């Protein structure tokens, strides 16, 4: 199946990127593990789609196919990541304001001297 081959290639490529970033210390070990696990999971699901059907049945999703479960989880994950991004952004905005304010207050003091 072509879609499986393409996805696996993409997943493998992303895994090497994570490895490279970890090596260059651009991301922490925790982050690398988290992302590695996510993409590894994607790879497994692509190779063995039947797995998700069994999983879906096991947790009681009756009419749903396994792929539905995957989509639910993916949406949940994206929500969580967007939330984290927003929190980060808020923190950064506040930090920028602190810096700008500090400079503004300092400038005035220097003028006085």
């Amino acid at each position, binding site marked *: 199946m072509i879609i499986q081959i393409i996805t696996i290639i993409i997943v493998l490529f992303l895994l090497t990127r994570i490895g490279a970033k970890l090596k260059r210390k651009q991301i922490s070990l925790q982050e690398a593990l988290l992302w590695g696990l996510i993409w590894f999971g994607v790879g497994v699901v692509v190779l063995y789609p039947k797995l998700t059907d069994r999983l879906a049945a096991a947790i009681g999703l009756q009419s749903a196919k396994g792929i539905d479960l995957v989509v639910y989880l993916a949406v949940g994950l994206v929500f969580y990541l967007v939330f984290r991004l*927003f*929190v980060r952004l*808020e923190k950064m*905005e*506040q930090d*920028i*304001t602190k810096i*700008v*304010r500090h*400079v*503004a*207050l300092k*400038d*005035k003091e220097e003028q006085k001297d």
Partner: protein
Amino acid sequence: MRTLVNIPAYNEAAKIFNVVQQVKLAGYNVIVIDDGSVDATAQEAQRAGAKVLRHFVNRGYGAALTTGMNWAQQHDYDVVVHFDADGQHEVGDITKLLAPIFTGVVDVVLGSRFIKSDPNDPNSTRMTRIKIPFVRRLLLKAAILFTWLFSGIKLTDAHNGLRAFSRAALSKIDCRQDGMAYASEVIDQIAEHGLRYREVAVMIQYTEYSKQKGESNVKKILLGLRFLWGKFVR
């Protein structure tokens, strides 16, 4: 008591000179926070005799006010008045704002354009004469309801740029909103610290200039969300 009039200004070169000059003529010290303007706001304010602090990047209305408040604390001021740079306030209203703080009755005084007249109170006898555009009026009423719901303070005007704070209020209020959501946050802070407050009738001039400078109505609605989000991640 030492009073500082705190004027945040973003690209207000056309108006700031007159505004500062009038406030200075009334006998107050003025600080203008030039919030990263790209025009001559800072120079004009300085020319009119204000102290000017400059944000080198635009950070918004709330951020500028907080910078002014910090400066006032560093320089031992007793009272800080918030005043808009676009000329929509009347300088004469500042005295009315200050009176309840000078007498020690309250810690915070908020300007209101909707306050009901009370014949017993000389501070509130003047009703607002000016016409407020309909959509503006609706939004302002919604803001009042919103503030009441989330901060538990029932005001007649929740988003008025004229405010005065005592030294006690200055040391307690801790606002982190950079933008216009500051107006909601500061009221929330008043509630949180149990500060004594009062509303006083003030005039707002709706000129073409101030209408153009103002944010769009859609953005104003989004401010409510901005405020709640800020409250959540605090």
